[in-house]
């Protein structure tokens, strides 16, 4: 408890608290100001943040640059979508199956690719993601690249996912749970081995830790949480398609994690918010300068990424002083 109080005295603590409170009351605000679209953006931010946190587990803490993380949007989403398509609408069945499927896929991919390093690892994770992407494109029974309109998961009597505000709060609760898990993970013995292996793999191996198995476990857990974000994404749009798994999405996730601050607890959340803010505001801002310029927003966004990569090493999180972790 005293830890918590101490943490709240830092800038980071205050910013985080204000942010969480704002996120918690967002549905009330959007209703009061009749800004439903803001709530839609908010929901997407939360879903992407869960995916970013899960990527951060392996990328930020473990140094494993996976260029195929969006594939878990697909594994989670398709598991829900396929079950729903066959009339199994209950979330109590859909969700565990989807998470298990995502973890299983992560286990297989991890087992095959974690022996490689550097660019090889980046490319092999991309290859496996492309594999599933094209499988999705080939699944004619489930709409192929047209995708599939599905019904939302049902939790009878508990929560109605069609209600935008309830769904938003559910996403927020799941994000908080994911963050909680992540903080426990980072400071556990398990997490310390993963982080240690990032900076010096040989040393960890010499200390007697089976690094490969630890990494595989982390990769699988990350996949499971990634699958959770996929479940939510399918329910948010009531639609699944292979485009959920495109490599550009994997790239976006990496950008988000780096932008927010790798290997920090709240970095992925900051990164997601900043990413969506940029995406939504850059266009109107340029249009304000001169009508019609908004369409060329990427000519500004591109160099911004370059500058972030060059000069914002620690991401947004580092703007708030040194991290405790």
């Amino acid at each position, binding site marked *: 408890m005293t830890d918590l109080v101490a943490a709240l005295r830092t800038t980071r603590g205050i910013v985080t608290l204000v942010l969480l409170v704002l996120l918690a009351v967002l549905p009330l605000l959007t209703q009061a100001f009749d800004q439903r679209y803001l709530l839609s953006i908010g929901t997407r931010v939360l879903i992407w943040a869960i995916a970013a946190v899960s990527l951060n587990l392996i*990328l930020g803490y473990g140094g494993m*640059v996976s*260029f195929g993380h969006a594939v878990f949007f697909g594994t989670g989403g398709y598991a829900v979508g396929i079950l729903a398509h066959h009339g199994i609408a209950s979330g109590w069945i859909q969700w565990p199956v989807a998470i298990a499927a995502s973890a299983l896929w992560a286990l297989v991919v991890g087992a*095959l*690719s974690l*022996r*490689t*390093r*550097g*660019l*090889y690892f*980046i*490319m*092999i994770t*991309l*290859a*496996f993601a*492309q*594999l599933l992407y*094209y*499988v999705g*494109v*080939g699944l*004619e029974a489930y709409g192929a690249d047209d995708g599939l309109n599905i019904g939302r998961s049902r939790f009878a009597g508990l929560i109605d996912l069609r209600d935008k505000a309830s769904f938003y709060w559910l996403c927020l609760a799941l994000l908080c749970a994911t963050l909680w898990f992540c903080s426990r993970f980072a400071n556990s013995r398990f997490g310390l081995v993963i982080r240690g292996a990032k900076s010096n793999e040989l040393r960890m191996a010499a200390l007697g830790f089976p690094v490969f198995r630890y990494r595989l476990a982390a990769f699988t857990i990350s996949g499971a949480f990634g699958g959770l974000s996929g479940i939510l994404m399918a329910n948010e749009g009531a639609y699944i398609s292979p485009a959920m798994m495109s*490599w550009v999405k994997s*790239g976006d996730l*990496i*950008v988000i994690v*780096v932008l927010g601050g*790798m290997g920090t607890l709240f970095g992925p959340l900051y990164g997601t918010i900043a990413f969506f803010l940029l995406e939504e505001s850059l266009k109107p801002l340029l249009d304000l300068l001169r009508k019609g310029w908004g369409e*060329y927003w*990427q*000519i500004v*966004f*591109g*160099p*911004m*990424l*370059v500058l*972030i*990569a*060059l000069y914002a*090493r620690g991401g947004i999180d580092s703007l708030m002083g040194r991290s405790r972790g």
Partner: protein
Amino acid sequence: MDYLLLQVLNGVQLGLLMFLLAAGLTLTFGIMDLVNLAHGSLYMMGAYIAWTFVGWTDSFVLGALLALPATFLLGVVVEMVVARRLYARDHLDQVLATFGLILFFNELVRVIWGPAGKSLAVPAFLNRTVEILPGVPYPAYRFAIIVVGAVVAVLLAWLVARTRLGMLIRAGASNRRMIGALGVDIELLFTLVFGLGAVFAGLAGLMAAPITSVKIGMGDDILILAFVIIVIGGIGSIKGAFVAAMLVGQIDIVGRAFLPDFLKTFLSSAAASSAAPAISQVLVYVVMAGVLVWRPTGLFGQRA
């Protein structure tokens, strides 16, 4: 038999084109340790610049010859403004920054040349078919690509194996610190190599242009394939890039030309015609994953 020969040639032509692109990529990675996603943008710029010059000079060959130094200059500018700041960074920063460059170049092209694609006509003297064997016609332009690609591959092999620049490149690929110790102006070497890579990418782009048309984002699709090639071959290895490019070229053609008929021998016709494109689409990725599981640093790569 004629049909088989035609398809093998198609694979060789595709492979050589990919090799041009992959060679620059593997050079910049081998020497400067740079993951350059913007390599595909240089490919695109090569094609657009060539289109402009061909329009001015009214001659494909003249326009192409002018476009090459122009892409070299462009490569040098990209190197001096952005790339050189990235050499010492980790791969993640490089991916991020060069991804930003892709977005920038794609938009830039739209501002300068407009959203509609451009078509570059095949030069008149190549706009016919040649008989590679009696009664087996092959497009002369594709044949020209094979010739140019082969010449460049030989030239590159000579450059790497026999010249001082090549010696430095080989030294750099195996031990980066060593070149510094040799008293070489590293900055200049890096700029030159980057420019050289840009020329290869530009050459690939302008040669592909009459076949695929010139369009925004044309380098993005092909970039991933180029990465697959250098990873299969072993990063930094020119020989590896060549072997892998040939392999990928043949795999692609086999998947498209022979797989459907092969599947029909044990699947129903309908199942085969829907399964074949799906399988051929993922074939190169399966091969790459297989190679990496078997050899984690590619066919000809050094241990990391």
